[in-house]
């Protein structure tokens, strides 16, 4: 049931992880955006640093803002970023 997902990172999430995007295979047992963040944070120091305070990280599934409890479902692209500071 695994599927390929594009991950995108912005602002200091991107800087901490060290890349703007990557493709991953969603591992079995990872159902929500929050679970994906937890899983990512265990992939290495840079991920642990980026996700050290998961409460401040915002996420979007296929370019729509979502909360961490949102199921990943058939998402093609999930983005992680800090609170927005545009305008």
């Amino acid at each position, binding site marked *: 049931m695994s599927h390929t997902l594009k991950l995108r990172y*912005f602002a200091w999430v991107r800087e901490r992880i060290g890349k703007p995007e990557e493709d991953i295979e969603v591992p079995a047992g990872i159902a929500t955006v929050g679970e994906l963040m937890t899983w990512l944070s265990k992939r290495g120091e840079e991920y642990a640093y980026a996700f050290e305070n998961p409460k401040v990280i915002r996420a979007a599934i296929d370019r729509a803002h979502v909360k961490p409890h949102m199921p990943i479902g058939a998402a093609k692209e999930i983005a992680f*970023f800090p609170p927005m500071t*545009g305008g």
Partner: protein
Amino acid sequence: MKTTVRIQHEPFDLAAEVAALTRGRGDAGAVVTFTGICRGEENGTPIAALTLEHYPGMAEEEIESHVAEAASRWPLLGATVIHRVGRIAPGEDIMMVVTVSAHRAAAFEAAEFLMDYLKTRAPFWKQVEKADGKIWVEAKTQDDVAAGRWTASSGKRHAAE
């Protein structure tokens, strides 16, 4: 209704954008513009520049959907949102909103609605360059409070139009 949403590195021309929305039409009575400018300091420390990053695709789609929402809430005749990205020096424009309506209340409220959205939910991030390095700007709680005022009811804050 004429709407324009652009995200660009280049400076923009406020007067040209206003003219593009109002020229040749007899129903426009009120034009409100907001321009956000890069200030020369942040929390008392001089800054060398801002760098704006955005989520390409999502930023355009989201702004367009908020412009459409503004048009459904207020009787707008036109709206333009332009947001720059990349490196911006103090004194340079960062972004602008123009709203056009027959009367002033709709133009003011729609412009404030779009600004509150752009400040809190649009996927843009600002980094400031100071003498001792670069820092990402932190989001302001007061911006979230301002944005929240539009969700309670119909978006009309005043008894008067």
